């Protein structure tokens, strides 16, 4: 049995030592940590080799990581955790429900009598599109996506829900307003077409990514185009799902000609670009043979 010294990642102070064998896994060490520190559970414990940086995976063993007797590990409490899937469901159910509620022109948001006024075709179609988008997201969360992580910090729930639910009301209020003016027919049709292409493309990419990773595994492979023509975008960008998502929201903005929708599109695009750049960098680091011509999110540009 060898000793593993556990230090506090924040202060660097030595906390306690654990007993371990070369075959002991990180998860077992985490369970030992939880016995020494009440209130912790393995899901919120991070054990890492340096004060800053990523922690080791649960399934790794001391032997597989090349750690010997007397090694030191830093302990970080990641805070209360919540299931990844739980957060996604809350994030997407909100916009679905809230937009439909706004569509009825309820009294907290609009004057009395607003509900009786006529509703433009554009507003009805926009409502259908929004609903389809978030229903699709909910179904994907339940049946399509394979997640790399089980949990995330609880504070993310409040942050993410504020973003999605807040923007939903911001956009829905304006599109469903009695004084909403729809764009000219050609623009409207363009918007609907863009939205449809974006949704189909996004779904195609999610499906292809699912096929890439077998059930129950955490394997990572380079995505490549498949039979589905929408997946051809893989040849041009690392994250075509984000590209198609942007196309969807661009379509929505065009079909409603609504500035709040445009702001929502811009905000989403900004965040997705940040994510795409990170993913692109990771792909290139992980696969030396990663195709050179591919960009992160915008073909030929970024």
């Amino acid at each position, binding site marked *: 049995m060898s000793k593993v010294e556990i230090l506090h990642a924040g202060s*660097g102070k030595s906390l306690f030592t654990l007993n371990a064998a070369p075959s002991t896994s990180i998860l077992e060490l985490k369970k030992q940590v939880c016995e020494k520190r009440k209130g912790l559970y393995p899901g919120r414990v991070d054990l890492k080799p340096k004060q800053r940086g990523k922690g080791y995976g649960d399934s790794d063993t001391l032997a597989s990581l090349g750690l010997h007797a007397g090694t030191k590990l830093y302990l970080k409490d990641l805070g209360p955790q919540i299931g990844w899937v739980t957060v996604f469901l809350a994030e997407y159910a909100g916009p679905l429900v809230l937009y439909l509620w706004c569509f009825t022109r309820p009294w907290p948001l609009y004057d009395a009598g607003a509900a009786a006024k006529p509703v433009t075709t554009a507003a009805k179609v926009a409502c259908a599109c929004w609903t389809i988008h978030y229903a699709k997201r909910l179904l994907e969360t339940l049946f399509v996506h394979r997640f790399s992580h089980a949990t995330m910090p609880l504070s993310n729930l409040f942050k993410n829900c504020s973003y999605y639910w807040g923007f939903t009301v911001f956009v829905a209020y*304006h599109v469903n*307003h009695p004084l909403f*003016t729809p764009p000219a027919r050609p623009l409207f049709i363009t918007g609907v077409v863009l939205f449809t292409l974006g949704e189909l493309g996004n779904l195609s990419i999610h499906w292809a990514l699912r096929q890439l990773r077998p059930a129950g595994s955490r394997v990572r492979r380079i995505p490549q185009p498949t039979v589905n023509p929408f997946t051809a975008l893989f040849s041009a960008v690392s994250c075509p799902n984000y590209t198609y998502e942007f196309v969807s929201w661009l379509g929505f903005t065009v079909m*409603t000609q*609504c*500035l*709040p929708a445009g702001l929502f599109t811009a905000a989403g695009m900004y965040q997705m670009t940040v994510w795409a750049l990170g993913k692109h960098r990771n792909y290139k680091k992980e696969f030396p043979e990663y195709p050179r011509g591919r960009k992160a999110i915008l073909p030929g540009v970024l």
Partner: protein
Amino acid sequence: MEDAVCPFVYWSQTKTKVHLKIDLREVKKPDVDLLPEQLVFRAEGLGNSGNQLYSFTLDLFQQVIPEETQYQVSDRNVQVTLTKEDEEWWPHLTRQKTKLPWLRVDFDRWRSESEDEAEGRDVMSDYPDVYDRLLQEETAPRDNRLNNFRESYLIMYNLWQLLGFAVILGKLAFRYRLEGEDSMLKAYDTVGVNMKLAQGLQVLEILHPLFGMTRGGVLEPLMQVTGRNLMLFVVLEGEPRMQTKPAVFYLFVVWSLVELVRYPYYTLRIIRREISFVTWLRYTIWIPLYPLGFITEGVLYLRALPYFEETGRFSLAMPNAANMAFHFPTVLKALLLCAFMPGILVVMRHMYRQRRKVIGPAKVKQH
């Protein structure tokens, strides 16, 4: 026997030794305890906090040979020399790379080391990067010429702003002497232009940390400048009836008093001097002035709301081409609730923490 304070300690090193110069006078018998990886020092003497017990503990970067430790007490300081276990360069003195406010690099000793060093080698030529990096971390960034430009520019900016706010206070005081309380209704008329100029220019203070010209975050200046400019350029400028409210007089006075302390403090920081009274003012005057400012601004915002409901200024009604409605009074109310009120708590907590770090907690007198 606790409540000891840390003295200023200056450290330098050679390949084989670590030197500590402890800034304490009139020390009789210091306690210097060495474990291979830790130094504990205790002594009664005269230091930056007066005549009292001083002590510090250092977790050393690598092991030293305790038996070969030497120390020397002189009139002006206590010098401790540690012998390293391994002849290696230490990137920092302590095991953790934490910044201790009382521990500094002894640059004078470091530089002269290369001249009269018994080992006969120019330490700096071996490790020029380390010296430069330490100098950088101790003082300010970049290459010397650029640094001089940065410092000159910042000094000029701070002094210019100081002048601006001094003029504002001066004009307000002068007019008050002449016209008495009546002048309080005319503050905007008296110094409105000066204030707009000075506050407008403060936008630069967001760019300074953004471009690495000063340390500190971007968020604090962003919050202060946005808050003040919203009041000045939108609420006051956008409604003439607000400009004759007496609260504006108080607002301008409070803002100016805060700046009259802040800019000199920053200037002293840049030229690396300290006047303890200015430091004390900087970290104390917020205690009465921030709440006063908060109340005054709150009063003005609340009084402005009905005017903006009436005039519809800064509001956008539907229908319009962007399909967006913007009701300024509602947005202002939301901002007051979600940004202004939590903001004052955040800002005051931040200043309180800064005060504790710089001035220290309330000292308990030792009997």
